[in-house]
């Protein structure tokens, strides 16, 4: 008797051999690492449910049934205790969080182990394929495991111990989990965020409500998808949401509030403390993706005349949820930034030394309207863990810390990858890993070619009654498709490598001249290649004059379209710049596909017209 699936429906028999009913469920005490089964729920005649104490009444169990040590008349019924959980009702078939593997899984079966004469303990939940098969039918499991063993890949049990389970449906019933339990709340906020992303919207809200406000604040800051974070926030009560936002770093909170609609955002801002509200409103006053938006107002700045002891005292007095401290900044009497000290410098210095003597005076700072990407560049260049953001009078408005800079870099990297035509989820570097993915990303022109050839054939059939002539346009078409594809690839590379000059002008004219020239050369090469092929294949034109002419006009069309593809590629560059200015992400693949389809349509139309003209 190792599995709950085998125990359910076993007959319950008393000492006199009378059958009282069939096993319905088992209750466990939740306080232990491997909890004891403490009560037995069974279903008597007429579907009446009963519950009795396991320890008091159960004598032994085997494959044929559960045997009690008393006669039915002596059995006293009991009730579910507050610290008891029913295995079949509360755990079997439910979704649980595996807090060790950090996944959301469904419980397929429950593994028990017999200890001593009549003791039964819970080992854990079986979440793998074996549990599934066993519950379907024990024979299924036997057959499949034997087969798997023969194939050399034995099917292992996937057991999650009770202490690593967190029940998701907890909120509906008052189940108290024991102290020894590792629950969701103890995971790293980033892991909590990962798990939350795997859940249904309703469960997300429930899980969130289980967390305390500080943890919720950290976890929501770790959710990568802004829309999702906003959705979770909207599912919370205004008061909870507001106090959670107040606990977050102001810059993260500002980013989140921006995703909400205006009314909700105003309501939440008004509910929080004056200090937090002001900090967030100030940040929201700066334009998106600038230093001002991602900076935090939580930093340490002291008069240059203060001593090291003063500085350490000031740091000690800070709140627990204050942003991490990397540097202490010094100010002149007017409040302007004069120097910076690292924490290390503070720690090794004498307590009565003046900050002005220790500080490094040539401070690197940025203006609040600087683009976030440039801020990250500055930090990379000078190897800073934080950079101050100052106004014209060098008054510190806030600092940008390294974690935000890393986010910026990751975000920009992802955008660049997307334009380059590689999904960020595909491992992040180079070609997509899966062969089909690679095909979809790189070789889809074959598909376009095939479809377009079909269309050309049917159009030729409909208009000129000569569908078989489609082979001539078809055999030249790949040149056009690839030319269009490469032209866009060139645009993408140019865009990614491009760094904006100071005057902010866009290099459209220069780009157009370059690409038009390349297009001209490409067109000429295609046309000449065509003439070469025709000349070699049909040396004395007379016999095959129609084919000769057809191929020649197709090559001419191809040359023309290839030239147009190159010359118009400046439009795609304009689109990329425009979308970047309006903060929209652009998919490089969409651009390539568009360019290819446009070229394909142009070429098909031109070549069909040419073919019909030649035939007529």
């Amino acid at each position: 008797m190792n599995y709950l699936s085998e125990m359910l429906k076993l007959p319950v028999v008393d000492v006199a051999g009378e059958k009282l009913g069939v096993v319905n469920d088992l209750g466990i005490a939740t306080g232990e690492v491997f909890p004891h089964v403490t009560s037995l729920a069974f279903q008597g005649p007429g579907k009446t449910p009963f519950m009795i104490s396991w320890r008091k009444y159960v004598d032994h169990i085997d494959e044929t049934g559960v045997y009690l040590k008393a006669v039915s008349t002596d059995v006293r019924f009991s009730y579910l205790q507050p610290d008891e959980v029913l295995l079949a009702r509360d755990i079997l078939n439910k979704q649980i969080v595996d807090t060790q593997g950090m996944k959301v899984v469904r419980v397929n079966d429950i593994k028990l182990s017999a200890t001593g004469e009549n003791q039964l303990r819970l080992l854990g939940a079986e979440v793998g394929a074996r549990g599934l098969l066993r519950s379907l039918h024990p024979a299924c499991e036997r057959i499949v495991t034997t087969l798997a063993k023969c194939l050399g890949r034995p099917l292992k049990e996937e057991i999650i111990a009770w202490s690593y389970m967190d029940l998701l449906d907890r909120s509906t019933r008052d189940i108290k989990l024991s102290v020894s339990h590792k629950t969701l709340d103890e995971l790293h906020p980033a892991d909590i965020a990962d798990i939350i992303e795997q859940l249904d919207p309703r469960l997300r809200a429930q899980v969130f409500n289980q967390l305390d406000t500080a943890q919720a604040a950290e976890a929501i800051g770790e959710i990568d998808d802004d829309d999702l974070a906003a959705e979770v926030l909207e599912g919370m009560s205004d008061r909870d949401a507001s106090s959670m936002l107040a606990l977050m770093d102001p810059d993260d909170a500002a980013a989140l509030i921006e995703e909400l609609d205006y009314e909700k955002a105003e309501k939440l801002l008004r509910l929080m403390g004056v200090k937090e509200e002001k900090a967030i409103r100030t940040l929201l006053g700066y334009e998106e993706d600038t230093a001002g938006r991602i900076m935090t107002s939580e930093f340490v700045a002291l008069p240059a005349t203060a001593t090291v002891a003063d500085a350490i005292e000031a740091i000690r007095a800070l709140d627990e949820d204050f942003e991490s401290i990397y540097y202490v900044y010094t100010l002149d009497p007017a409040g302007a930034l004069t120097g910076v000290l690292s924490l290390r410098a503070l720690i090794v210095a004498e307590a009565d030394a003046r900050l002005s003597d220790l500080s490094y005076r040539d401070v690197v700072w940025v203006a609040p309207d600087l683009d976030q990407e440039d801020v990250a560049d500055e930090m990379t260049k000078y190897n800073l863990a934080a950079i101050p953001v100052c106004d014209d009078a060098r008054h510190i408005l806030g600092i940008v810390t390294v974690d935000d800079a890393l986010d910026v870099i990751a975000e920009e990297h992802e955008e660049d990858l997307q334009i380059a035509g590689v999904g960020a989820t595909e491992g992040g570097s180079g070609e997509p890993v899966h062969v089909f993915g690679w095909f979809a990303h790189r070789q889809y022109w074959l598909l376009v070619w095939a479809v377009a050839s079909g269309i050309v054939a049917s159009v030729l059939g409909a208009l000129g009654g000569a569908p078989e002539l489609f082979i001539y346009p078809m055999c030249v078409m790949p040149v056009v498709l690839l030319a269009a594809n490469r032209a866009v690839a060139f645009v993408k590379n140019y865009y990614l490598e491009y760094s904006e000059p100071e005057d902010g002008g866009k290099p459209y004219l220069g780009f157009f001249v370059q690409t038009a020239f390349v297009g001209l050369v490409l067109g000429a090469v295609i046309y000449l290649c065509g003439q070469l092929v025709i000349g070699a294949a049909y040396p004395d034109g007379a016999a095959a004059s129609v084919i000769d002419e057809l191929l020649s006009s197709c090559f001419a069309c191809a040359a023309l379209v290839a030239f147009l593809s190159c010359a118009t590629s400046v439009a795609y560059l304009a689109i990329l710049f425009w979308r970047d200015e309006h903060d929209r992400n652009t998919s490089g693949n969409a651009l390539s596909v568009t360019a290819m389809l446009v070229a394909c349509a142009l070429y098909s139309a031109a070549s069909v017209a040419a073919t019909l003209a030649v035939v007529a």
Partner: protein
Amino acid sequence: MARDHTDKLTLAAVLGAMGPGLLAALAGNDAGGIATYSSAGATYGYRTLWILPIMAVLLIVVQETAARCGCVTGKGFASLIREKFGIRRSALAMAALLIANTAVTISEFAGLASGLALFGVPKTISVPLMGLVIWLLTMAGSFRRIERVLLAVSCVFVTYVVAAFMVGPNWGDVATSTVIPHLVASPDYVSLLVATIGTTIAPWMIFLAQNNVVDKNADESDIPLQRVDTVSGSVLACAIAWFIIVTTGSVLFPAGIGVSDAADAALALEPIVGPWSTVLFAAGLVAASFLAACVLPGVTSSAICEAFGWERGADRSWDEAPVYRGIITAVIICAALLVILPGVNLFEIMMSAQVINGVLLPVLLVFLVFIASDKIIMGTYRNGRVWNILTWATIALITVLTVVMFALMLLGF
């Protein structure tokens, strides 16, 4: 179940809520639907019209129940089945869903093939190509970008409404046939009825309706708006079906044209658009089939993975969600292969898929009615008596029709 929410039912809220239901209704008139309704009209004239008002009511009941379950529990239908009925019975339900949806996917591929055949593309070319495109789109989860375009194109079937008026049938006859039930004792007629039920109340629509609600995180207070949505969508879906049967029943039936392929079915639109009928019909058929063929494998796979606790979603890679992607791939390959086999009648495939749908529908409806009337799961929002009776009546109706159908076939009619 009744709770006062009238204060929230402002006009704007009602109009806003009507969106998804209407879209689902338009999408519901897919290849199988068009084939079944056209064939019903062409073969039996107005004699199947009476089933449509009944269908509208039953469709409302089923869709409303599914949406309400989603609102109350916040869980998908597959999750609910698994949590209430355990593994064995979920396996049964999922097998029914898998078979029904594979059948429908096959019929969508048949729709694609016959639609493109009207443009002169042979199915040996169109099916593999379309299969590959659909597979790539579902794998990337990016078909939503073109969803609207496809829906717009598939709206051409609304022309049936105009066509019905232009044909000018005897509206008295139409009205009488709609109200008075009419039975013909032939297995073809009965299987046509089953197919009509199967295509109007498709099993996948239950899952889709509930998933939509769950994804929106609607709760109990949204139930009134969901009702507006389901009612308007269901009535529209059945109305379009009704007009298709009226049109085909007035044009094709008197002329004695049986619908054996898409070209025949397109003839029904001739009175309104003349020679363009083929193009219009083919475009609509291709768009509707393409859309449904993109949606169906995903819905199926997602439900199965939800029930058995495997990872799912288009944003999961092959390593993370092998089963999810595997099922989608298998369904698409299976559908494409079956349609491509030489000698199969595409229109017949579309019809028989709907019969399979109809036969398997009761299985899932039984699960739905048990869940919806469960006090622990649904609380005060559980099914009322009328709803239970109507659902059981649907189950009984389909079961009786199925038995009659098989009995008639065995008796050799």
